[in-house]
């Protein structure tokens, strides 16, 4: 095993330390530029001689590409390059790189409506569009399959001839089932035998798009000697670089990826789309090429998250103790594997101290865009069912739903289904805070229903690098590699300022390109403020050690005789000598005369992420004649470990709940019989608008994670995990029957209401 970094063993976490900056809410340093429009996003880069790139996409859900003729397109005035599959290196299908290059540009087959089949770079958009129309693609249209359960059937159209189901012994025929994955602990048969009450239900959820406001945009520029600069909107500059290197066969040292500002990602910008196409166009045209996707392209060919089918069974005793839980789960992954579906069996029950669990999960391909990551990938969809069954059990035995969860809550020392033993966690504290909050103690208004649901996410660490530089005037710059998707620059600047004892306004952070720092894992999994914060704290402590050395040199004493406190180097004791404390600025001003620049740098494979837990409370009103749901009141209670920037933590809680509200109520893809998406716009893909959601109240619980210098836990994923379940539980209370299918859209809900009425004699 790799040796743990000293800071991980000794994070320096001190619960009694008086904090000056951490825990406040200063204005974001990048905020003004966002408000004035000066911030540069993916499509905001302009280079001399830049061309417009446009992509031709498959109109078929499933088709063999027999031939592609680009000759007429190449002759359009203003067109500088036309590319298709022939312009990408051949890579064996079925490998990770083979899938990646085929998703970027179709090779043997087009696998979904919107799959790229060719691209053009031209001096104007109109020339590029005119050329696209002249590309002749000969398709042999094949039968397609959209629904994952249909795709699992033996006679379903097969997407990939090379796939043999992983995890099934003797699987020797091509299948759409990529993998069967089993995970469990204990003995569920014995567990269910002990149960007084058992509830088993089936659920389904639909794919939903991450819904970022900024469509992917990038500019690629390739020089005559093969150097590539790529400007793009990404959550994963290093991952993009390495994957581009793999599929385009270019050394990583020749690809420099510079991340733009992030106009929303939510996981959807962890894998590339137009970037390899822009690079290949630029290589061919020998000019910079910009590609900015349209919303239509974003909907048809990027995202979404997995749709699921699930069967969930849980048993408990009369006193509320859960004795066993069992689940069968199906995950739709789109045209290629990569859903991260194993998160779900690992996380779906985790928060309850269960002893007997059995899960079987399947990942299935079908003719839809390959899914991409989203907050807590694959977990909220399944928790939608789990927390419904939990709620039903609580009601069956007549127990308060939060008490039922408290009865089963995991605590420190519980060994999880995935092998980790919990350190200090805050699930019990979160549930207790929820029970005490004003919302839960207010009566449910007449005609409304109230629901609660709980959620968990692992939180992540991983490879992270960063540098802290002290300027000649004592102000500080940070070089960060992880993308700032939600305000990590200010949070990390706050931690640096706290360490150095200087105001946060004296710190500025920049996002590095991939030549400027070592590898950084993707910004995802609620890891960035935690991991990069740790790296920068380590860098600050290294810089402080150097500051002490310089002060010692100035005073002519041993470095051991100097301490650092509140921004000043001071003699460690009276016997060191009578020296006036030196500020960072005073020491920095003398760097020319000492040993040059003062900086700290750190790279770690960060571990010790503290798991996160949350509980949501929601009141809804349902129009029983139309099936329309109105969210009346919503409260998110969640453990943040320690909120570094309180407003941003609240923003994460609120944003997660809002995305969950859309997923719960109306967001849905409509596919025609021909397998084409019929609603690729925000007009008909019904994400909530501002007036659809109430103010989301928040309550930050703080049970510190001692493995981090400031005790923080990631907060990006948990806020969406329980949302759909909580809303469904509330609707169930309102109309008398709990919906089991997402979205809970007006037509579906009205049908459910009418059926329930008919069953109960009107």
């Amino acid at each position, binding site marked *: 095993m790799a040796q743990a970094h000293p800071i991980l063993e000794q994070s320096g976490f001190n619960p009694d330390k008086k904090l000056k900056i951490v825990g406040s809410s200063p204005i974001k340093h990048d905020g003004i530029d966002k408000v004035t429009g000066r911030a540069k996003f993916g499509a905001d880069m302009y280079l001399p001689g830049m061309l417009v790139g446009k992509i031709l996409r498959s109109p078929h859900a499933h088709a063999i590409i027999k031939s592609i003729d680009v000759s007429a397109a190449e002759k359009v005035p203003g067109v500088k390059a036309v590319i298709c599959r022939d312009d990408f290196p051949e890579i064996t299908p079925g490998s990770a790189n083979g899938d990646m290059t085929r998703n970027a540009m179709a090779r043997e087959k087009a696998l979904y409506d919107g799959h790229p089949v060719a691209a053009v770079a031209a001096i104007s958009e*109109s020339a590029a569009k005119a050329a696209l129309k002249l590309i002749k693609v000969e398709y042999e249209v094949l039968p397609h399959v959209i629904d994952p359960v249909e795709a699992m059937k033996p006679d379903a159209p097969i997407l990939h001839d090379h796939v043999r189901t992983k995890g099934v012994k003797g699987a020797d025929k091509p299948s759409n089932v990529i993998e069967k994955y089993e995970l469990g602990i204990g003995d569920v048969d014995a567990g269910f035998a002990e149960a007084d009450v058992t509830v088993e239900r089936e659920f389904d959820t639909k794919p939903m798009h991450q819904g970022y406001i900024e469509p992917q945009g990038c500019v690629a520029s390739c020089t005559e000697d093969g150097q590539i600069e790529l400007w793009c909107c990404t959550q994963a500059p290093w991952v993009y670089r390495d994957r581009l290197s793999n599929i385009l066969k270019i050394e990583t040292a020749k690809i420099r990826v510079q991340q733009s500002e992030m106009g929303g990602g939510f996981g959807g910008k962890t894998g590339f789309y137009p970037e390899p196409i822009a690079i290949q166009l630029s290589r061919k045209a020998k000019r910079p090429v910009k590609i900015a996707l349209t919303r239509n392209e974003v909907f048809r060919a990027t995202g979404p998250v997995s749709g699921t089918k699930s069967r969930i069974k849980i048993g408990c005793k009369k006193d509320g103790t859960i004795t066993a839980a069992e689940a069968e789960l199906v995950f739709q992954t789109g045209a290629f594997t990569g859903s991260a579906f194993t998160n779900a069996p690992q996380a779906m029950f985790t928060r309850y101290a269960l002893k007997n669990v059995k899960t079987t999960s399947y990942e299935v391909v079908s003719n839809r865009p390959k899914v991409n990551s989203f907050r807590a990938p694959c977990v909220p969809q399944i928790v939608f069912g789990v927390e419904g069954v939990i709620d039903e059990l609580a009601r069956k035995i007549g127990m308060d739903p939060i008490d039922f969860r408290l009865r089963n809550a995991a605590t420190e020392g519980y060994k999880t289904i995935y092998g980790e033993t919990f350190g200090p966690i805050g699930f019990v504290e979160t549930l207790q805070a929820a029970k005490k909050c004003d919302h839960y103690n207010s009566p449910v208004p007449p005609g409304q229903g109230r629901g609660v649901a709980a959620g968990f996410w692992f939180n992540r660490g991983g490879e992270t690098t960063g540098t802290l530089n002290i300027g000649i005037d004592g102000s500080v710059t940070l070089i960060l590699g992880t993308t700032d998707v939600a305000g990590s620059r200010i949070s990390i600047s706050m931690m640096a300022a706290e360490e150095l004892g200087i105001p946060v306004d004296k710190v500025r952070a920049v996002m590095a390109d991939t030549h400027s720092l070592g590898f950084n894992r993707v910004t995802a999994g609620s890891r960035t403020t935690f991991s990069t914060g740790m790296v920068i704290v380590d860098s600050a402590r290294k810089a402080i050690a150097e500051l002490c050395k310089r002060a010692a040199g100035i005073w002519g004493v041993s470095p051991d005789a100097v301490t650092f406190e509140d921004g000043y180097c001071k003699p460690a004791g009276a016997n060191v000598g009578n020296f006036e404390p030196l500020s960072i600025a005073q020491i920095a001003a003398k760097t020319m005369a000492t040993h040059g620049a003062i900086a700290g740098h750190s790279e770690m494979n960060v571990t010790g992420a503290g798991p996160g837990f949350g509980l949501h409370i929601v009141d809804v009103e349902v129009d029983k004649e139309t099936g329309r749901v109105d969210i009346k009141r919503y409260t998110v209670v969640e453990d943040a470990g320690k909120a570094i920037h309180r407003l941003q933590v609240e923003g994460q809680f609120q944003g997660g709940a809002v995305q969950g509200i859309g997923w719960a109520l109306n967001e849905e893809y409509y596919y025609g019989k021909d397998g084409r998406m019929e609603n690729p716009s925000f*007009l008909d893909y019904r994400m909530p*608008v501002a007036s659809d959601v109430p103010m989301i109240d928040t309550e930050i619980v703080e049970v510190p994670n001692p493995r981090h210098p400031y005790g923080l836990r990631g907060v990006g994923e948990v806020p969406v995990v329980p949302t759909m379940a909580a809303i469904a539980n509330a609707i169930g209370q309102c109309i008398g029957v709990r919906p089991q299918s997402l979205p809970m859209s*007006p*037509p579906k809900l*009205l049908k459910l209401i009418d059926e329930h009425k008919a069953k109960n004699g009107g």
Partner: protein
Amino acid sequence: MDVRYEAPETLQAAVALLAGATGPAKILAGGTDVIVQMETDLIEPSLLVDIKKIPELRQIAFENGGFRIGAAVPGMDIMGHKALAKAWPGVLDGVKLIGSIQVRGRASIGGNLCNGSPAADSVPPLIAAGAIARIIGSKGTREVPVEQIPVGPGKTSLASDEIIASFFLPARAPHSGDAYQRFTPRTEMDIAVVGVGVNLTLDKGGTCTAARVALGAVAPTVLLSKECADALIGSKVDDVALEKLAAAASAACRPIDDKRGTKEYRIKVAGVLAKRTAQQALEVARKS
């Protein structure tokens, strides 16, 4: 492809441009449909005739006790007209539901009608109001009831050289009221799944003497339903009449299943909304 853009200052010049067009031409008012359709490659006009610089198309005027509204007046201007709001609150409700504040700052009722959508929010209340469109073309002027303008999704009865100049809303009889309600899953920025416009007049005793009911988004064009009107006329708009109205509204629907709603759902909700809208119109009439 290059697009020729013209912004004439008279109706005659605008008509002449349309009449002389050699390729596909589009009239541009607020552009909230036309520009979006061009951006998404749904239409590729070679000529755009912007009518916003023609003064008479941008005015709201009193006329014979009623109102004449220029076809290119933006929604926000219509909503800000107090006398219009008092006389025709249902028409204003329809305008209020188009897009969002930003969209309504540009969008006009002429454009909303000529886009030809059966789900256009201002069209059912205009039809229920008995609004008459004044149409100018090379061959002269015609006055046409609004319900005769849409002929199918995206299609109108206008000739290629004709422009709607204005809409006339007649003088109100005492005890008259109108209302428009629509159903959308979201609160705004959404397209009606069903829309209902009701306009009715009561006598002194509270009996309905005249009614017009228009149903949106339940057929290829907005429907003016005589059966719905008959359910109200002669009644006190009581529960029995409202149930009849709901049944008539559901029966009149000829919807499709699509991304915006199922057939079954639209038929059911048309009845629910017809009732609710008639009740609202009744309240207005009683107060006027």
